[in-house]
């Protein structure tokens, strides 16, 4: 018996029409970095965007001037502090649970609705970064959920899927996640020793294989020919402490100080982010 209750699709496959698009101008490629090496992109941060959450924040990192490159858009909501379920074991500290999820449309490759390993990884890094900032023993037997949706994933739509490593994008995303989570935590009124903010620095090779690598802050992977190494740092400025450091890549053995300078650049980026964060919080209090 044929299925007549549903409207079934055609049995055969059809080929989508291909239009000759004359009007689309060829975008210039490869792109080059439009900012000085030690300058971060501007960002916009706003707390209190989600009315139903205890605390929330929205972070936006602008795109570069070239069209087609998306920025980073993050939305964070903090639920809590709230009492742990009865079934949970006793905890003298606040139980931090972080949840980072890309929106299905955030990246070039469409994301699923369940978290994939890379998103879990981001969540673990974020938790490590925040744990150093929250005064956890002020809230015994309680938990806080930090949920971040990455609305736009800071990926260049012009480059192909195979080009570039996604992990560099993940680092940028993590930096934003840390900053926005700190803002949302402050909005929720959860005690922290300091405002933690994330920053990314990378060692890039822009002019061929043999060129001297340079250290840049806030790298956009599509703007660089090759990224040798990158680090994402969560930093507490008033305490001068790093709560999380994620380093990846190979450093040339010739320069021993390269690692240190990379971390320092990361800290610098993080400080920049922190200034925005502090400014945003001050604005909220006003």
């Amino acid at each position: 018996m044929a299925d007549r209750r549903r409207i079934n699709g055609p049995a055969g496959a059809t080929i989508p029409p291909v239009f000759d698009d004359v009007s689309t101008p060829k975008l210039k490629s490869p792109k080059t970095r439009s900012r000085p090496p030690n300058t971060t992109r501007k960002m916009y941060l706003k707390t209190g965007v989600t009315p139903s959450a205890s605390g929330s924040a929205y972070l936006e990192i602008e795109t570069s001037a070239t069209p087609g490159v998306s920025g980073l858009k993050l939305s964070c909501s903090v639920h809590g502090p709230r009492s742990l379920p009865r079934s949970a074991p006793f905890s003298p500290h606040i139980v931090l649970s972080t949840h980072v999820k890309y929106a299905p449309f955030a990246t070039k490759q469409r994301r699923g609705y369940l978290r994939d390993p890379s998103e879990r990884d981001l969540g673990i890094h974020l938790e490590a970064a925040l744990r150093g900032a929250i005064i956890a023993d002020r809230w015994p037997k309680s938990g806080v959920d930090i949920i971040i949706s990455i609305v736009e994933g800071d990926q260049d739509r012009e480059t192909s899927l195979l080009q570039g490593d996604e992990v560099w994008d993940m680092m940028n995303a993590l930096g934003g996640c840390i900053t926005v989570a700190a803002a949302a935590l402050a909005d929720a009124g959860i005690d922290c020793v300091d405002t933690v903010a994330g920053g990314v620095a990378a060692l890039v090779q822009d002019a061929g294989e043999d060129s001297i690598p340079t250290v840049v802050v806030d790298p956009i992977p599509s703007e660089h020919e090759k990224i040798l190494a990158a680090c994402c740092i969560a930093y507490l400025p008033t305490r001068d402490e790093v709560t999380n450091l994620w380093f990846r890549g190979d450093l040339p053995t010739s320069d021993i100080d390269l690692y240190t300078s990379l971390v320092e650049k990361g800290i610098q980026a993080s400080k920049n982010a922190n200034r925005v964060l502090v400014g945003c919080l001050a604005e909220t209090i006003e």
Partner: protein
Amino acid sequence: MSRHQYIRNLDYGDAVDEYEGYSEEENDELSPEDRALMNQGTADVQAALGVEISKVTVAQIEEALWHYYYDVDKSVAYLISKFVNPRPKATKPAVQPPNGKSVTCAIDTSTAGLPLELGIPSHWAAKYLDLTDTGLPALQTNSPNSAAWRQSIGHQSNTRALSISTPVSFEHGTWISHFFQDMPWGNIPKHRETTFIAPPKRRGGLLGGSGMPPKMSKLQALAAARKKKAEEKKAIDEKAEQTRMQVEDLSMEHTPAGKENVLMAGPSNKRLKTSESIAQSTMPLLGSQPTQPEISHQSGVMTKVPGEGPLLGQGLFGGRPGSSTPDAPGDGRKAIMAEPSAFAQLLCWNPPTSRTSNGSESDPLYGFGCGYGADNKGNPPTKPLDPTDWFDVRKRKRDDSGDFDEEVILYPNLPQSVRDTFAQPSPDDVVLAAQAKAKSMKAGPKTAAAQPKKKGTASTDAVTASVDGLRISDAPLPKSRNLDVLSELEKSKPKKSASFVVVGHVDAGKSTMMGRLLLDLKVVDQRTIDKLQKEAKTEGKGSFGLAWVLDQRPEERSRGITMDIATRRFETEHTAFTILDAPGHAEYIYNMIAGASQADFAILVIDASIDAFESGLKGQTREHSLLIRSMGVSRIIVAINKLDTVAWSQERFSEIKDQMSGFLSTANFQHKNMAFVPVSGLNGDNLVHRSRDPAASWYTGPTLVEELENSEPSARALTKPLRMTVFEVYRTMQSPVTVSGRIEAGSVQMGDALLVQPSGQKAYVKSILANEAPVDWAVAGQNVVLHLSHIDPIHVRDGDIICDPAKPVPKADTFKMKALAFDILMPMPVEVHRGRLNQAGKIETISALLDKASGSVVKKNPKIVKPAMVARIVVKLESQVPLEPGQRVVLRSGGQTVAAGLLE
């Protein structure tokens, strides 16, 4: 150890001794830590006092610090109130710890004389003390500092006894006035006026939550309370700071005016919490200090500690290698803070506070985010966006030429390619426009088509039919030979053709008689009859063998009755006849009507056996004769059958003949059109051959066939437009739509275009069969088979009328007719039979009773029509059927024929 035991074991003596011992010690006995704290505190106080340091000595500062346990805030407040900005009515500073113990800041006479030095009359001070003595509450209204002030009052009241050396006078009049001294009486100073703060606006942003604040757990509530507390504290601090600034301004205005207890909560970030040191109480007493203003420059003048502002990185870790020193906080932040994108604005719903970009291409904001709201040239918006911009991006203004005014379109700040894409009308727009255009085009021909209709050259049906006929078909049209049918007919000089219907009561022997007739005329051979008779015998119906020549359907054979019209044809010398063998049963009357409508004349078969004629006369004999007459059959041959059963009795024959002729004449048959033949259908007597039975020798008249040949068929309407009632539709090899029927009027030839009513479909004649032979043409009166083409079988049904497309049969669902009533007629539901067609309907109105002979109106609007009366009635049908004036219609109701008549 429990608390109880601790208390019990406490050595009170030791404690008291310790205390007394300390009371006797001098102020220099500070421990090193306390000394350090004191030095630090002194420096802080000096810093806090700033330029006012000249009015306070180090000793005074130290005293105050000691008194307030190194609390810099309080000390500064005290010193300011005491020495820097004393109110005119200030009293002598007399300081003692609240518990009245020996820790005292005994004030010597020089201190007591301070008011005098400051130019304040001593009775002021006295009066003031007096007031405090009376226990009046504080008159001071400097609310932020009232607590501190009260504290100082307490000190004064405690030291009152020992310190006052000035005379005390009671002046009641003045103290009443003093009581209201602070009342502004309408001239409220600015700083006391309330500032009304507008309630906070509800923020926009994401939907979610109810209007209520989100439900909070206890912990969340606690967190919120802390948040609130912190905010309040900040607000208080700010306010205090503000007040302090005001007071500073005031003090500049009237600096030496006097002393007053104006205390400030001095803001300071470096507040020392020294509660531990208080518990130890190891501080030595501060000795009495000289109160002369003494300017101290010990630690240098420090600038005011910034009271607010976030701690930004550069001050604390600016020196680190590799870190670029950021700018001043405000500027730096602005440089790295971005404007919200359209998405963010939508999310937060707050219009951007400032829009500094000037809209040039080099602006770093250009291209950031989606940039909705930017104008058409790609510039970012220069004004704050309002939400309607995002939802109504395509505000278009139509100018006079009908084109869209491009300048008004608010395109998002998208790449040029995207904007180009949306500059043209969208595919949907194109389609819609084309549809609108097509609609207006369609309206044109319609009006053109309406024109001839108005002129009356063709009816609506004709137009519809012609439009429908414009269908393009792949199959070639049948070729017409364009014959002049009438001249062909004259040339061919064919045999006369006639059809007759055989009617009669049930079991009168109609079918058997016809079978015998066919057998005798050698249309059917003997072998077939033998076979049929053998079959009939096996079924126990021996005598039905002949009838089965016509009754071919199994049901008819098993029941031994005729149910539908059976047609056979035979030819005599001069004429080609078509037999229409009608059923006799009352329930198949409609088939009989269908048959009768095709007949030129009728054979009424009457069973002559005993009682059968009488019952027949009451039954179908009567009804059939009435029906065939009302169907327009005027010639009737009465075959008195089964006379062999009554031994060919002439009396019986003449009896039946008399009765029938009398009856038939009442049914409007003319005597010359009646013929009576005694026959035996089973044996074939007097059918084709004369009876050989000697008993029947009395009959010398013509046989049945001779009577048939004598019958002149009614005049054919050859020149009228084509009308043919579809008797049957079936499939054949030649055509999927093969119709059989009798041509009632006009002629048809191969290739003719035809119109089938009521479906209104056009068809073409592919070929014609007449008498089972292909012919080129056919004329009225012939029973023909037409093979049609260019028509779908669903459009042709039994009872339809095939007509000339130029002169089609009109369709109607209401008709007026002149009806002869066989039964009582009133407005009631009826079945309308017209030939093969039968259709349910109802008599709507009976407009008039008519005279049978003349047709003139006898009575208008009768309620009912009695039997045998003629009336003009209006009948409404359920659906449209092809009807034409002059057609004969039978009305039946409840299995009875109630009326028959002619359409008007």
